[in-house]
Structure formats: C-alpha cells, structure tokens
C-alpha cells in the first residue's frame, strides 16, 4: 500500500464532509461533518508520519484531537444555547447575524 492511496481516501472523506457542511441544514449534522473533515486530515497526517518515518505527524494528530474535543464541547454548548433561544437548530431559521 502506498502513500497516495491513503491520501486519496483522506481527500474523499474530506470532500464528503464538505458536502455535508454545504448541503445539510441541521446544525448537529453540520457539526458532525466538521468532525469528519478533521478526521480525514488526521488520517493523512498519520499516513505521512508512517511513510516518512517521522513522529511529528502523530503528535499533530494528538493535538488536533485535543482541539476537536474542546471544539465539540463549546460547539454543542452553542447549539444548546441556540435551541433554548430559538427552539430550532435549522440553520435556515437562524439568521440574526444576517443582513
């Protein structure tokens, strides 16, 4: 198995996540698509780390996971606050910052 295969898989997963963010209007599913994109980047980092014989990629994945955990906690708190105020998490209906 070579590096390109892993990178192609990672790119595919990333684009699926992008399509999820663009096409879905449910805030939680958009959020899960963002997690999917983070994970696809992690996969390419681990593949680079393994094929280049360098530990830095895996350290970066470790920190990316920490950031993802923090992001999930804050993001879900925002979603709960939104739902409490607007009774919906449909992103079409949340437009107080639009002009």
């Amino acid at each position: 198995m070579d590096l390109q295969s892993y990178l192609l898989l990672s790119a595919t997963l990333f684009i699926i996540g992008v399509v999820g963010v663009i096409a879905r209007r449910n805030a939680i599913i958009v959020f899960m698509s963002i997690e999917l994109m983070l994970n696809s980047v992690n996969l390419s980092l681990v593949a680079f780390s393994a094929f280049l014989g360098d530990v830095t990629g895996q350290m970066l994945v470790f920190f990316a996971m920490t950031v993802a955990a923090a992001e999930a906690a804050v993001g879900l708190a925002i979603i709960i606050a939104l739902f409490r105020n607007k009774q919906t998490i449909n992103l079409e209906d949340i437009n107080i910052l639009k002009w």
Partner: protein
Amino acid sequence: MHQRDMWFKNEPRSVIHSRLIRPSTTSSRLSVTLETLLFYFFGTISVGSALMMVTRRSPVIAALYLILNFFALGGLYLSLHAQFIAFIQILVYAGAIMVLFLFVIMLLNLGDEKKLAEKISYKKIIGAGLSFGVLMELIYVLAFSTASLPPSQFEKATEIGTVENIGMQLFTTFLFPFEVTSILLLSAIVGAVILAKKKLR
C-alpha cells in the same frame, strides 16, 4: 555469525540460502497483502459510513454512522502502525465526543428532518458540484505526483507509533504545546459552562 555457519555446516549451500532468505520474503509479501486488504476493507467502511452519515435524516442514525466511521479510521491507524493514535481515536472520539453528541441530540429531542430531496436548491447543487470539482483536482494532483514524494520509510513506522515513543516526544520536544493544550481545555470547559448556562448574570 560464526554460530550460524556452524549450524548449517553439513547442508548444501542452496538449502542454507533458501532457509535464510525465504522467511523474510514470505513474511513481507504476506504483510503487504494483508495491509492492502485491511486498507480496502476499512477504506470502504469509512467512505460508506461517511456517505450514510451525510445523507441520513435522523441525527441519531447519522451519529451512529459517524461512530462506525471513527472505528474504521481507528483500524486504518492500526494498519499504519500508529497504535497510540488508534486507541486514542476509539477512546476520545468514539467514546467521549460521540457520546456528547448523542447526549445533546437526545437532550434536544429533535425530530427527523424533512426529506432531503424536497429541500434541494440551486445553491446546494452548485456547492456540491464545486466540492466534486475540488475532489477531482485533489485526485489528479495526488495520483500524478509520485515523483515529488520522498522515499517510503514504512519499515521504521513500527517503532514510531508506540506509546513509549509518543510519550517521550510529548514530554521533551512537544512539552510546550502539551502545556498550552491544558489552557485550551480549561478555557473550553469554562466556555461550555458559560454558554450552556440558563441565565447569564
């Protein structure tokens, strides 16, 4: 070296040669095919579950497919000899983060969305088309850029991903980012508590 010469002293040269060479070649060929098999197995699962996650109407089902996707990625990390990252993937992502997601989904008690096909607008079609274009570009770049890649060091990968090596690097080279991470997590805890509080005073 001397001992090995002694062991094979009475055998013809070809037998010695085959005995010395064959185990390593068969094991490396076997591991390559196994790795390829694992790659296609977990790759198919991860892409399939990601597609299912994006297209499901119910958020709970989507979250369960995302958990399946995380397990498949954990398997891919294991096949890349990144043991520590693989277990952290299962523990932190599939264990902690997705439980948080499911908890919030069930707390909000959301119903299913309307049918996806009823809500397709030209904006979404353009967006999906553009993403597909980016995917094609990425595939083009990755598939035809073999010359620019450095030589593979895959045989070293088994020593890199161990918990011992990761911990060593974490507390020497990456000590400062590691400590900054604790501040990040603290601020995330404070932020989550403030945001999810009922009334701000």
